């Protein structure tokens, strides 16, 4: 069975160019990047080259890039690290209701440690209101953390404005840019961020590697112990092949950002319009908001996302209902509830996220199958349930 992948926000395949770049680090360069000898120096060279690539991608200094094991760790390090490093009386954090669990649950941990956290609501637009940010800020606010683009809706948050607002009260600003990296231009100065998270496997690098941008002069406490790697901010032997892959992916992302953004946006728009016009009682969540070019989140009134997802998978189409992390849990997507959908509506939504490997033909095949699947499910829907 030919398979078609519409779940690039969950993860992306490793790009062949990225894999090629990694192969020497897997086959030939075996040293520990912290060792003094030549083996170590060979590995160190690869790590620092990758750091330059990542810094170019983020438009920052190489020493501002901390390599981690991925987006979740970067978010943990940014939030826990910044709050714990702050002076004792600054015990307030502002974030939003639509963050990734890596941010939300880290904030939950801070609450258990005695920090007050405000979770800002968003309306149907899926975009946080800058006025809400201002209203939530206090003199003791230590950190504001708002994602650049939402993983489920693709909605883009006004990061630069939020950052400026946060800085006005002396708070630090962290952005989870896992879902915007490779899809939107990232420039840490334009965005005004102090801390910024990216993840390798969302930009065609392997799983298990990510980075945190830490603006020069910003203090964070390490959240793990065991060495002085990454300027004592992230102990642990460097994942050399992963880091090389991340560096290569950053470079690749910069190169093809403009072309791919436009191509994917056109494909996504066609997909969206076709579904809206061919299938009754469908809607696009946060349709009117600025969104990442590859993402659409569509409600199919009257049916459940779970059997829809399974039916499509059995026919070779990989899609997602809500975020992958919350599948298997009973709760409908917290993001969809946050934009005002009922539980029933939230359960009827699918997220489709295309990527560099998605061709017009994939979309055509999907559109050839989807209407009949939806129609069958609607015909079977138990009345009144």
């Amino acid at each position, binding site marked *: 069975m030919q398979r078609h992948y519409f779940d690039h926000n969950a993860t992306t395949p490793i790009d062949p160019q990225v894999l090629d770049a990694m192969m020497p680090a897997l086959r030939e360069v075996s040293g520990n990047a912290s060792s003094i000898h030549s083996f170590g120096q060979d590995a160190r060279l690869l790590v620092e080259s990758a750091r330059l690539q990542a810094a170019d991608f983020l438009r920052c200094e190489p020493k501002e890039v901390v390599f981690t094991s991925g987006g979740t760790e970067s978010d943990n390090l940014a939030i826990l690290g910044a709050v714990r490093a702050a002076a004792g009386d600054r015990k307030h954090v502002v974030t939003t209701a639509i963050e990734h669990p890596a941010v939300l649950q880290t904030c939950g941990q801070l609450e258990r440690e005695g920090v007050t956290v405000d979770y800002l609501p968003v309306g149907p637009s899926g975009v946080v209101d800058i006025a809400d940010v201002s209203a939530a800020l206090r003199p003791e606010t230590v950190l504001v953390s708002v994602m650049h683009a939402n993983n489920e809706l693709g909605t883009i948050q006004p990061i630069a404005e939020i950052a400026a607002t946060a800085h006005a009260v002396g708070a630090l600003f962290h952005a989870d840019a896992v879902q915007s990296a490779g899809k939107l231009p990232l420039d840490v100065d334009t965005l005004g961020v102090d801390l910024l998270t990216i993840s390798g496997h969302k930009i065609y690098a392997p799983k298990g590697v990510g980075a945190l941008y830490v603006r020069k002069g910003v203090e964070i406490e390490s959240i793990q112990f065991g060495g002085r790697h990454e300027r004592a901010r992230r102990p642990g032997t460097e994942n050399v092949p992963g880091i090389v892959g991340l560096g290569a992916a950053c470079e690749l992302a910069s190169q093809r950002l403009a072309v791919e953004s436009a191509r994917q946006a056109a494909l996504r728009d066609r997909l969206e319009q076709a579904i809206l016009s061919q299938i009754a009682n469908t809607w696009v969540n946060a349709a009117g908001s600025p969104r990442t070019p590859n993402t659409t989140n569509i409600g199919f009134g009257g049916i459940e996302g779970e059997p829809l997802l*399974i039916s499509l*998978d*059995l026919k070779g189409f990989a899609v997602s209902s809500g975020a992958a992390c919350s599948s*298997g*849990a*009973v709760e409908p997507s917290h993001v969809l509830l946050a934009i005002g959908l009922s539980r029933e509506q939230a359960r009827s939504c699918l997220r489709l996220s295309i990527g560099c490997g998605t061709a017009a033909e994939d979309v055509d095949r999907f559109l050839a199958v989807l209407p009949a699947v939806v129609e069958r*499910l609607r015909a079977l829907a138990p009345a009144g349930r």
Partner: protein
Amino acid sequence: MAEELIAVAMSGGVDSSVVAALLHSEQRPVVGMTMQLWNQQRIPELIPEGGASGRCCSLDDVYDARRVAQSVGIPFYVVNFEDRFEQEVVAPFVADYVSGRTPIPCTICNNLIKFDQFLDMAKQVGAETIATGHYARIEQDASTGRWLLRKGVDESRDQSYFLFGLTQDQLSRSSFPLGGMQKDEVRALAKKLNVPVADKGESREICFVPNGDYAQFVEKYLEQKGGEAVSQGVVVDSEGRALAEHGGVHRFTVGQRKGLGVALGKPAYVTEIRPATGEVVVGSKEALNKTIFEVDRLNWISIAQLDAPLRVEAKIRYQFRPRSATIRPSDTPGRVVVEFDAAQIAITPGQAAVFYHGDVVVGGGWIV
């Protein structure tokens, strides 16, 4: 499209794993699905030492089911029915105990979850039929056209008692590939088909009460719901004399002998539970004997309905050898009177009475 897709309800245990492997080995198109019904972590006090594996819905069992599906080479999904399970099975289970009845959640789960919501889900993903690891047989009566439910060939494993509530439609869309096998054959088949859980043990506890302590479950569940405290009450003898205080009628079941907190000088049994007054009546073993009782909420399988008295063998709890009885319509609409030929011990409200003709299930209902 080739042959029709079959959805196998996979629990992670040996039986349903063998079903999946067997159907796949017969070149049938199969999709495996595990029902997530209950979050064990909700009442962590009930998880026994060493974990709750073997009782459905533990992470270990989902892991096992997935491993089997991967090893067999079939698509696999976890489907989440927690909301419906709590509403249809767990909450009524608790309500029954609080009302002095002794429920059988497995039967309710079969009627309303496994052979209802799961069947719906199967149909939605394109599978017209489901297969499970139950030890029972389904066949169509050539003369009447009715779908029949028969005992499993391995009588020691027979689960037809828990399946009496299945409707004709449910039976027509289900299959029990293990119904014609002995458990030993199933284990051998598991080895032959390289099912990775061939040596896994099993538990017969109710799946959402992994440590088997129903009273504790009822108390913890009500506590979490912020509901009313469980009523205290008194243990009384048949003349109404108070013998002891007790911690709630949910801790008792008719026929229970242990944990009564009374000394009568001879073995004492719970003979009746009166939820309205909180009284638990105890008496001699003889006082438990009853010949005649009524059942309601009937479901008929081999017959369309009961119009006249019928000789059957009746089974009044899972661990009970069916005994001869006559069933007839009651004066109360919707009920049936069951009269055993000889008195039986502990006919327990809340349990099911299932009627057989040999190994064919005639129907059944709930003991009032």
